[in-house]
């Protein structure tokens, strides 16, 4: 039975592994190498400096800032997206009328689901360009225009949105405005995910609960939510990756890609800034390697925390 297995496995793996090594692993390995040099990125001159870059980044004010901004997104993006998605899924699935067959989803829940999912199929670039227009700070954007019209905002002093470095609850306002876009674009997707998970819970579980006199809130918090634990924790891990990668939004939407005045710097934008604007490529690579290590540790931690026995229905 083992005849030809080695040849078969080699044949199947050769091309994908070769492509992956050449276009993914090799650039990463090179970058890790550059992180030990003072290479500027454009010249051919480079000197080995050992771990100097890594020592330097520990006391870099900009990186400390970016680190806390990343932590902010890491906490808020999953938290708000999942909370909103759960609320929407809850309303969709148990917000309807009750009848002899138990609690129903609201009328038109299929249509709502289709609409809420829209942002998920749009390109991040389309979303960013669109929100740029919505957030325009000169009173002509969608939100400023609306608020001026109903008198909530002074026409001479419109909301600055992503140009606003002033802290709100200790975090620069620009980050909150970016968070809103992330939640807006993600909630529908996770709502559909949670809805599907809710519907895969067998009906007799609910019937038993209703027979015991549990209402829809009780049923939701005591039965649905605990049974959704697996799905929610997977969603948390995924949203964690998304939160670490808010770069497209920062890149398109903030002044000088991380501004104003570095108020929206995240790891990725600091890497970009150091590599392409300050011409310190070796240092940028050191930051990126640190970010990679941070991400891997975080992923391992999350997997360990969320690992749990599966419930078989």
């Amino acid at each position, binding site marked *: 039975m083992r005849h030809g297995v080695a040849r078969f496995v080699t044949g199947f793996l050769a091309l994908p592994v070769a492509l992956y090594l050449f*276009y993914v692993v090799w650039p990463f390995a090179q970058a890790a190498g550059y992180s030990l040099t003072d290479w500027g990125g454009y010249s051919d001159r480079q000197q080995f400096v050992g771990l100097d870059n890594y020592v330097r980044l520990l006391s870099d004010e900009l990186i400390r800032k970016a680190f806390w901004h990343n932590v902010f997104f890491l906490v808020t993006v999953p938290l708000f997206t999942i909370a909103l998605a759960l609320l929407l899924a809850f309303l969709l699935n148990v917000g309807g009328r009750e009848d*002899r067959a138990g609690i129903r989803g*609201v009328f038109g829940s299929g249509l709502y689901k289709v609409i809420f999912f829209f942002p998920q199929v749009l390109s991040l670039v389309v979303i960013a360009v*669109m929100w740029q227009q919505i957030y325009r700070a000169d009173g002509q954007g969608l939100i400023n225009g609306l608020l001026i019209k109903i008198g909530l905002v002074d026409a001479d002093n419109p909301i600055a949105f992503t140009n606003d470095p002033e802290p709100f609850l200790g975090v620069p306002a620009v980050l909150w405005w970016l968070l809103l876009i992330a939640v807006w674009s993600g909630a529908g997707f996770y709502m559909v995910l949670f809805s599907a998970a809710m519907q895969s819970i067998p009906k007799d579980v609910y019937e038993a609960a209703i027979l015991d006199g549990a209402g829809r809130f009780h049923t939701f918090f005591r039965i649905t939510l605990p049974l959704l634990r697996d799905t929610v924790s997977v969603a948390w891990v995924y949203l964690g990756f998304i939160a670490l990668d808010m770069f*497209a939004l920062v890149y398109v939407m903030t002044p000088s890609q991380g501004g104003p005045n570095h108020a929206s710097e995240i790891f990725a934008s600091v890497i970009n800034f150091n590599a392409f604007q300050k011409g310190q490529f070796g240092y940028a690579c050191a930051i990126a390697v640190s970010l990679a290590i941070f*991400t*891997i540790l975080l992923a391992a931690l999350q997997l360990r925390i969320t690992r749990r026995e599966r419930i078989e229905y």
Partner: protein
Amino acid sequence: MSTVTHTSGRARPTPPPPAGTTPGPVAESAANGVGARIFNGFSHLFLVVWAIMVVYPLLWVVMSALKTDAEVIRKPLSLFPASLQWDNFARAWTAGIDSFFLNTLLVLVGSVFLTMLLGSMAAYALARYEFPGNRLIYWMFLSGLTLPIYLAAVPLFKGVYNTGVVLPLLGPNKHVMLILVYVAWSLSFTVFFMHSFFRTLPNAIAEAGLVDGASHTRLFFSVMLPMAKPGLISIGIFNVLGQWNQWYLPTLLMQSVAGEPKNQVIAQGLIELSVNQGYKSDWSGLFAGVTMAMLPVLIVYIVFQRQVQSGLTAGVGK
């Protein structure tokens, strides 16, 4: 809290229909308390508000694409232009959107097909055969999920540039090169996803196939791959959307060398349009461009919404 006390304790003669189906004409008056009605109303209110928050900006972009530039600036809020300016679309189309679409299509046809083929082949070999180095290769693919792409940017560009000197087809600004890069960068998740899928397939069928004298390759293509169809659909949709939306890699790699025009894909081209229109202040043209990038995807999604929803959520749920 208990709002279903009317019905509780009563045996139900008919089993309830599965959720997700629209409510049938069931007598429901007796079962609905006042609280339930209020809650139902509140649910609808909240859902409608969120639906408006999703649809209104999209609609606003589409309608702004039909305004004159003057209207975009003077009456930014209105959803109803005085007259429909269809030539905004014609202008944006000839200003580059036509070639963006063609380039995107050329690249995606190749890259999605190859990603699926190579990804499932690798995942299958890793999931169902034991050999030294199996775990190493698997973890190598998996680690790609956590590494920041920006780290690889400059070495990747240098690698592509140097390859282009020897093999022009694989140099910067070439479709074939972008296809291979997309495939390489999509392998991590594809392998990860299909790996877990192939592991769940029953052993008995594979063994029966081998006993019947099928080769390993034949077993894969005519037995195992068809059995993995649901997984292939999920990961296929995931890759189509992911690669359609990719903007960083093309911005990095589809750069003009030696004066030839850039072969831009749609996401990359839109960023450039949105930067350039700052000089030309062709706002309506920008909105038209965004609309054209957005509508095909939305239409495909609305037509295939069930498959897309289940495909994408299965990609996370596995």
